[in-house]
């Protein structure tokens, strides 16, 4: 993942977002991290990026960490909208959620998520899980959203 790629994080819990940011930083990721507290804002941002407008700037490469726990319907709806769009579907979506449920895991993979991760209850374990996600993302190549 090149340094100009963007990490978009849709996370309703401010403390969880801080843990995610720390974990990514500990993985040595210095990419721009943009935070949204709900799925609607996230979709607005991604569609602006897709259309080359708004605040996304020059970079058109992006990965999304998406919480589907608190607002399940909106989270799944966002995943579906992204994966049904010819252009946005190229964005890898990592589900980060407190929900450890077989049917939700199936559903998210059927819709096309790249990975489903259950947030560990302990903050330190959660941060370490994000650090390992970040280390892996550092070797991932992304496709441009255009």
């Amino acid at each position: 993942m090149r340094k100009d790629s963007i990490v978009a994080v849709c996370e309703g819990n401010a403390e969880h977002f801080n843990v995610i940011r720390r974990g990514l930083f500990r993985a040595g990721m210095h990419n721009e991290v943009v935070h949204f507290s709900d799925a609607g804002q996230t979709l607005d941002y991604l569609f602006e990026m897709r259309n080359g407008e708004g605040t996304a700037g020059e970079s058109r490469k992006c990965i999304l960490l998406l919480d589907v726990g608190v607002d399940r319907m909106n989270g799944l709806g966002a995943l579906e909208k992204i994966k049904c769009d010819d252009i946005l579907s190229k964005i890898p979506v990592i589900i980060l959620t407190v929900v450890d449920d077989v049917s939700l895991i199936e559903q998210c993979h059927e819709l096309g998520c790249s990975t489903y991760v259950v947030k560990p209850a302990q903050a330190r374990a959660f941060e370490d899980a994000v650090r390992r996600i970040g280390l892996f993302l550092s070797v991932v190549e992304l496709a441009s959203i255009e």
Partner: protein
Amino acid sequence: MVILIAEDNAGHFQLIRKNLWLTCVDKDIVQFTNGQDVLDFLFNAQTKGHSSDGKEYVLLLDIRMPKVDGLEVLRKIKADKLLRKIPVIMLTTTSEADMVKQCYELGCSYYVVKPVDYHRFMAAVQNLGAFLSLEAMRVPCVSGGG
């Protein structure tokens, strides 16, 4: 979780297996040296109830392979109603932007370019292994009643 590796280069396979093993010691690893064999395995697994005990797979997929190339393997897996849930990570020397784009369009989860440098290759696979061995990661079963 079973890690399937479709890789025709014996040297690359040894490097991948060795470095995955360092981080994923509890995972089974199965090698395929061409695209047809991996398709036979997965489609047989699906139709003959090979995976009726609920096997979870992740596929590491090279692109340039004999018989059937990685792109065609990805296309066939992602066109299948049950197999499409399998996370497919492209692991290839090919770094052309068009190929990256095509693989994401077909539905790969991630695209990783094998570093030419030996030590960077090892480090990349170890990052991948640390990611795949995340206890919090959930992968769907492919049996689905098949």
